[in-house]
């Protein structure tokens, strides 16, 4: 099958790959580049475990073709901690007991990050709405919502 060159930035680093046409971004990130933080829970756009941020937008990487990402700026949960210091969202998920099996966690954190980038002081409803595309089968929704609210407060304190 024909391979196409794809070049994008992943968590600040340049990447260039030859990818089989039709490969999803999820598979390209995981199998080609080795960033396994986005998870494949359904490969059909229903669980949110594969969520990543592309040019500031929340995207399902299982429904995004890698070849459409030329020149894009892609962020995943693997690149969130800076210099070994956890991002406030990661800290809050840790402290609020918002992970159980952890499989939904990277996707949840991506969805929450896009929310906080746009709405630094979200209401509970905003959080529920922002996470509505992400399934947690371990049913830890309440601690997850609390974690996002805590992270938002921590953010606004640092900003103040």
């Amino acid at each position, binding site marked *: 099958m024909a391979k196409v060159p794809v070049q994008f930035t992943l968590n600040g680093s340049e990447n260039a790959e030859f990818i089989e046409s039709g490969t999803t971004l999820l598979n390209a990130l995981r199998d080609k580049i080795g960033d396994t933080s986005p998870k494949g829970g359904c490969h059909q756009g229903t669980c949110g475990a594969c969520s990543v941020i592309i040019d500031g937008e929340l995207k399902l990487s299982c429904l995004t073709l890698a070849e459409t990402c030329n020149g894009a700026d892609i962020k995943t*949960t693997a690149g969130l901690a800076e210099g070994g210091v956890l991002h406030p969202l990661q800290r809050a998920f840790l402290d609020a*007991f918002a992970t159980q099996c*952890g499989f939904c966690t990277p996707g949840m954190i991506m969805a929450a990050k896009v929310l906080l980038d746009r709405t630094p002081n979200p209401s509970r409803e905003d959080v529920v709405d922002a996470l509505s595309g992400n399934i947690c089968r371990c049913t830890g929704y309440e601690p997850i919502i609390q974690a996002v609210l805590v992270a938002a407060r921590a953010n606004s304190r640092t900003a103040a």
Partner: protein
Amino acid sequence: MELRKDYFADVRKDGLNEIGQPRPRLDSPGHVTGKTAYFADRNFPGMLHLKMVRSPHHHARIRSIDTSEAEKHPGVVRVLTAKDVPHNIYTILILIQVGPEDETVLADGKVRWKGEAVVAVLAETERAAQEAAAKVKVDYEVLPAVFDMEEALKPGAPLVNEYHGQNYYLYDSGECRKVRFGDVEAGFAQADHILEQSYQSSPIEHAPTETTGCVVAPEGNDRFTCYTNTQAMFFTLDNASIILQMPGSKLHFVGGTVGGGFGGKVDVIVEPIAILGAKLTGRPVSFVYSREEEMQISSPRAAEKVVIKDGVMKDGRIVARKVTGYTDAGAYSRHSPYGAQKGAAHYPGPYTIPNVWIDTYCVYTNRTPSSAMRGFGVTIGDFALEVQMDKLARLIGMDPLEFRFINAYRDGDMKAHRQPTEGAALIECMQEASRAANWPVAEKYMAMSSYRKGA
């Protein structure tokens, strides 16, 4: 909520100091940074992908299998059928002598449920494996199927599983697990009221966010490393060793990180065939359920039917309880004979009843094999029992919580399956529940204790 440490003071020396304290989870740092390594995060150069050809019928004889077109499909490396599996017939609990072996790794001559694995295709890409699987031709002779437990138990019902010879699991006690305690008919004769009700549940899928699967890598020394999300490492290793007729020392299992299990990942389903694929091709193999397979193929919680007949006195005492439980194993045993047996021990509930009669059947039907899920064998039973308790309380015009105090088991009471009650703490839990839920009960119940004086 009050923590009654005193109740367990004589049985626990540790002071229960951790209870109520926040403690960080050891695996959370990996989860929040995306560093936790699930089995599918292992990727090996040259890894093959395994896809199953599955039965489209609930019950059918296999007349012939033609894999020639699939083998020619670009990217296909190997196609496996029943004859490639060294010991193709197995049952998980054979490790604890619960037989007979009744399930095939790849169907041999017959399929017994819709979705049963028939042929395994190994190819360079997932897509090639999928396309080639669609080219396997299986000629089926469709057989009558049975989906209802009571139908399956009737004489003349289609026989689901020849390895059992009848549509129920044969326990050493006969066609069902039996508990006999006191004289249940005498109890009914003495009762002021009798209430018989039937409760039914459907199969329930665990739906973990991470689907079932494994990645197998052949090592240089003729060993195989299997990265898996099984919840039952050693069950899986030992069963794989039997199925592959390979000493356990050749198998290295790496796991413990499970993206949600809930009991759905205790069956030995993906590992043996993936290891076999790796052995026969000399290449790493990945076998991961699609979301559709997870929902349709992986074992659900068994459908159950529970018929409860109780004899109760006007003063609130239950004097007789007769329960008939049915567990729908589907086409194969997996963990269901054990689940049905657990039900037999459980059905009196946490109550002391002088006359008890219990029969629990593990029934075979042409449905998806069921297996473990969170308290399997007792969870549906508890739903039935507690709904029944509420109905009984209503029948005699008694507060449902006070009714439970009257019947609660207490330390020293003999249970129907002849285990003496120890550390019951049920009275204490209900007292605390009464306070927490603001559901007051009469003072005499608040003064009760699970300890019987002089017991």
